[in-house]
């Protein structure tokens, strides 16, 4: 059953499924993203790590088309998406290539739609299927994300945070994207629920072959879910490499500081000068 949802690798493009080159975003005078380049091979997982003001969320928004890059190119599944979509068909096509799961489970679902209706809407948008086929696919998807029948028919307000995130994941997968961007998707969840959802995400990757781009500030989550990582600081990539190497042996001073700030058994916080001097309302 899960095979029905497997991502079909495009035989024509053997190259990376997502490529970003020289990406830049300015908000007035503020440079949020400065010359960022990376590429993600199919069926791998990349983490984009940074704190607030690093530009990681802006990059995610640019990839899915919610923000427009000031400069640089974004290519997904071989097609350029640096400029806004031209037509409705173009928009839908892009939607079937890259999808996103947001951080806040409480506002990322329409409060008036049940889980089934939410997923159904996406199916109707991308496929012209008859109702029976859609019903079957909704059942497959809700089962894939671990929701039972009662939860699938419930409105968001009757669901917990973890359950809502599962609905959001099902909605994203309904479009059968090649790339799924997880924008701090587990950050707002309790520890025990976070573990469930991380396991779920790993299972989904195994059974569908989807590529993940994980935006996160949480290094332990990054270690658990991803193969490669890039570290952002104030819009600039300061380090990149295999997740295990970068986390075990960070080279850049900022990465080292990040690593050293993570609480763990035996950890003691130490005072030190913050990078960049005093913080001025930068978030």
């Amino acid at each position, binding site marked *: 059953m899960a095979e029905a949802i497997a991502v079909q690798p495009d035989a024509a493009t053997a190259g990376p499924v997502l490529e970003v080159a020289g990406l830049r975003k300015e908000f007035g005078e503020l440079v949020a993203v400065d010359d960022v380049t990376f590429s993600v091979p199919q069926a791998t997982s990349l983490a984009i790590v940074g*704190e*607030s003001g690093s530009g990681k969320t802006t990059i995610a928004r640019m990839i899915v088309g919610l923000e427009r890059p000031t400069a640089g190119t974004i290519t997904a599944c071989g097609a350029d998406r640096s400029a806004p979509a031209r037509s409705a068909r173009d928009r839908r096509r892009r939607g079937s290539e890259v999808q996103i799961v947001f951080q806040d489970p409480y506002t990322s679902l329409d409060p008036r739609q049940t889980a089934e209706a939410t997923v159904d809407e996406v199916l109707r948008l991308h496929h012209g299927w008859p109702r029976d086929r859609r019903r079957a696919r909704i059942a497959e998807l809700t089962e894939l994300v*671990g929701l039972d029948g009662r939860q699938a028919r419930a409105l968001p307000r009757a669901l*917990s*945070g*973890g359950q809502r995130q599962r609905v959001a994941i099902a909605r994203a997968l309904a479009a059968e994207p090649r790339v799924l961007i997880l924008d701090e998707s587990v950050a707002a969840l*309790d*520890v*025990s*629920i*976070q*573990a*469930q959802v*991380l*396991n*779920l995400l*790993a299972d989904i990757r195994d059974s569908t072959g989807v590529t993940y781009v994980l935006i996160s*500030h*949480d*290094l*332990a*989550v990054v*270690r*658990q879910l991803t193969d490669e990582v890039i570290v952002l600081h104030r819009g600039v990539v300061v380090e990149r490499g295999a997740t*295990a190497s970068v*986390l*075990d042996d960070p080279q850049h001073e900022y990465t080292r*500081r*990040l*690593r*050293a*700030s*993570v*609480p*763990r*058994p035996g*950890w*003691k*916080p*130490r*005072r*030190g000068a*913050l*990078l960049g001097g*005093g*913080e*001025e*309302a*930068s*978030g």
Partner: protein
Amino acid sequence: MDQSAAAPPGAPLLLVEGLTVRLPVEGAQRAVLRDVGLSISPGEAVGLVGESGSGKSMTARAIDRLLPRGAQVAGTISYDGTDVMSLSGAAMRRYRNQVAMIFQDPRAHVNPVRRVGDFMTEALRTNLGVQPAEAATRAADMLGQVGIADGRRRLRQYPHELSGGMLQRVMIATALLTEPKLLLADEPTTALDVTTQAEVMAILDDLRREFGLAMLFITHDLELAAAICDRTAVMYAGQIVEVRQSALLHDDPLHPYTAALAAARPDIAQTAPRLAAIPGRPLSAFEAPEEECAFAPRCPHVRDICRAETPELVGLNGGLSRCARAIELRGQLTPAHAPDGGSDG
């Protein structure tokens, strides 16, 4: 079971016993805290760890008399020997000077149209009758203590001109100005970047030692509590389920929930083939069944005895555990011994 058994000797500064709180929700009274007991000695830092619904924030609010209207409170909270629940008027104000609270989101607790200096010195000026000039000097000095340079200039700024981390440090400084003996910190660093969090934690730790402050540090992060707290209490479904020396909590937990919580967290040093997720989801006090262990439905070590009645707190190796099988499970709860995987909820 005397819940202060795990504490250092000497009279406690704060003693909570049998605290049960019910809140009116849509007509019904719902329990949010059940028989919570806690003791904090002078100068001691105690961590309070739990997921949502555990009641950790509610406990802090009860101590600071910030419960919502209509709350029913049973049990006692005594500060320095005095019953907190019966305080009013001037005695209440003195209490508030002695017990300071810092919150998770500083921006929600600050008036955006007043300058930083205004609200920092408010308690000094109104409650303690300090002259404005003297109050401003003390405020500027305290800002220096929390690592904010150029205090005088900062006093004239507005909250929106400060970043989240800086504002939280201002809140800490504000709390310390009235020279409290007890600090209640409700997830003070959850909303901050991890590097800022490390800095703020270090400041809290330093100042606490310097001023001899006792602290109740509330967080969802087990490792964070262990970093600066001497003892840590773990809450689940409105109850205290474990109290332990922080150093021992990770390697020798006394309650299956604590062990499960530690095991569920991904490890920054390695990739696990599968995380040991706890099935189901955390319960609030009012959802938990009355006559059995609240964690029983999710516990990998559950037996019939766990469903017979709500377990009492049992003293063990200097700690406390609310597990019916605490003694027989001793030493078998660490992640190395956790049952395989576990199904996901």
